[in-house]
């Protein structure tokens, strides 16, 4: 090799060596085109089917059961408005008093509506739970989405990992159980994205259940010295087996991330044992338990993006009183989670955007099922079930109310572009051509 050739090739090799570490999985050299609005996003998928009437409209029993003078806001942490003063059944039960007659004290000094951005009248693209959850995470209406299969379109976790270069433990989905295909929501099966870009996931009430403790809780704590040979031998075996991309069946954490997750699981069991888990003041629902574990994940991993779903309000199919109680508790635990981030996670406090939205609404007209108070119940299948709201608060989020009952603004498919906008990858997400063409970042809707 002559001198000129040598210098040319060395120069190329050196340049490649310097640039290669910054090439993203998407193949781009630099991470983002837009400005980053905050370092963290927490999305509360306020799911289960929430009627506008009892939530953002504060109508309590007046619209649903025809009880005159029984309007009022039962979600004081999220929305403004006075509480109802008639037929109180949405609170906790105290001995000697009627069931549900003690409302849970408001946690936040100022409601989210008063601190942030409220879209009181948005449109859902589906009246179903799984499709609705898909919409919240993929930005696609998902009209052909089947149950028991992963989302057909990429989730926000995949967009963020591919285009913003986030690592697996930067993105989390905390599901409230293993039913209804919930554990499949951390990744799509899209050929250009998929599990290798998927977020981490716990169906926390199952992972950290007594069965979870039995199956995982006695796991040894291996030292780094123990783990190195294991991973070295495993990696050797895997190299010679070499799975193709479509055979990958798990999220791609690095060995260090895996160790952190395992240590975290063990630490949660230890905290459980010692009664040291931080939890909302009222923790009498599965949703509250799920939010509690989401808070633990936030505290440990300080993820860039975490989505947590709750769904207790779905009891509305057959028990309206139970629905009101769940709605009131969902407000309580959502408020608690925001407060917990502000007070206990300094790395995220003041640097997080919090988004809350249901996955679908509920019907205008009731079904004939009566509960213990002789109140009728509601399913979700008509046009009213497409009426939803969206809330945003946190770093630099303006305090505005956009739209109203007579003037709907926003779609549930807006949530993904909004999160992409927060992290500066809105162009990548739009250019993928895989989200709803009518979707916009909520910042653009203002």
């Amino acid at each position, binding site marked *: 090799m002559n001198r000129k050739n040598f210098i040319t090739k060395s120069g190329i090799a050196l340049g490649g060596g310097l640039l290669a570490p910054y090439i993203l999985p998407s193949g781009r050299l630099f991470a983002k085109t837009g400005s980053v609005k905050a370092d963290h996003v927490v999305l509360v998928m306020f799911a289960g089917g929430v009627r506008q009437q009892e939530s953002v409209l504060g109508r309590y029993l007046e619209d649903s059961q025809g009880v005159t003078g029984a309007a009022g806001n039962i979600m004081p942490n999220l929305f403004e408005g006075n509480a109802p003063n008639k037929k109180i059944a949405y609170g906790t039960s105290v001995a000697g008093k009627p069931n549900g007659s003690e409302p849970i004290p408001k946690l936040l000094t100022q409601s989210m509506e008063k601190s942030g951005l409220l879209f009181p009248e948005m449109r859902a693209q589906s009246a179903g739970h799984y499709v609705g959850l898909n919409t919240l995470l993929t930005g696609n209406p998902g009209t052909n989405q089947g149950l028991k299969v992963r989302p057909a379109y990429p989730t926000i976790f995949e967009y963020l990992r591919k285009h913003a270069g986030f690592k*697996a433990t930067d993105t989390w*989905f905390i*599901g409230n159980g*293993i039913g209804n295909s919930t*554990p499949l929501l*951390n990744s799509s099966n899209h050929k250009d994205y998929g599990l290798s870009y*998927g*977020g*981490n*996931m*716990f*169906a*926390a009430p*199952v*992972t950290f*259940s007594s*069965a*979870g403790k*039995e*199956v*995982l*809780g*006695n*796991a*040894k704590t*291996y030292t780094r*010295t*123990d783990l190195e*040979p*294991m*991973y*070295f*031998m*495993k990696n*050797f*075996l*895997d190299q*010679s*087996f070499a*799975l193709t991309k479509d*055979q990958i*069946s*798990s*999220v791609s*954490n690095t060995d260090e991330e*895996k160790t952190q*997750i*395992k240590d975290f*699981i063990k630490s949660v069991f230890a905290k459980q044992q010692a009664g040291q888990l931080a939890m909302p003041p009222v923790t009498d629902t599965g949703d509250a338990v799920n939010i509690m574990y989401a808070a633990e994940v936030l505290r440990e991993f300080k993820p860039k993006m975490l989505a947590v779903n709750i769904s207790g309000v779905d009891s509305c199919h057959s028990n309206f009183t139970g629905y009101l109680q769940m709605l009131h508790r969902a407000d309580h635990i959502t408020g608690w989670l925001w407060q917990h981030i502000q007070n206990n996670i300094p790395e995220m406090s003041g640097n997080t955007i919090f988004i809350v939205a249901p996955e679908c609404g509920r019907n205008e007209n009731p079904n004939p099922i009566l509960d213990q108070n002789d109140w009728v119940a509601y399913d979700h299948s008509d046009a009213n079930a497409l009426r939803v709201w969206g809330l945003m608060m946190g770093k630099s989020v303006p305090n505005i109310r956009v739209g109203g009952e007579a003037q709907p603004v926003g779609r549930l498919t807006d949530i993904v572009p909004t999160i992409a906008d927060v992290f500066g990858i809105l162009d990548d997400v739009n250019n993928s051509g895989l989200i709803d063409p009518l979707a916009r970042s909520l910042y653009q809707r203002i």
Partner: protein
Amino acid sequence: MPSFKLRPWFIYGLLLCTSACTKERIIGYEVDQVNVLEDKSRKTKKKNDAEFISILYTNLYQTAISPNQLYKTQNVLYSIGDQDVANEMLLSNYFNTSGITIPKDAVMRMDIDAFIISTFKRFYLRYPSEGEKAFFKQYITNNKAVTVEMVYTAFACSEEYQYY
């Protein structure tokens, strides 16, 4: 002088005797005889959760898992996004219990070749390739801290073990 009449059967018999097979020659090309074994590339079907758990349990405890235990384990593993993490923790949990049937470290060190072959057969239901044998022999020999548990963990958590 008596005359002979050649009968057809005599002619056929004569032909048969003179055209007998020649003795087969054994030609060798200095290649040793080898046994043809199952190839790992033929494992294309992924074990489902229940298959993975019950095969692993049976492998380690040499007894079948109870349906109740299987159901619980399946649910818990399904609740974790990273299946490698879930499987590694499950395995580590098993290793922390009594009743597990694995060779002692001293047995492994006494005859590493035999240990490697038996481990491949136990987990992968095949013999190791020469490269695999050489890798494990060298690695185990050079790293005194490597235990049977570590080797078994690597195999049980490997991708090939997820397939059949």
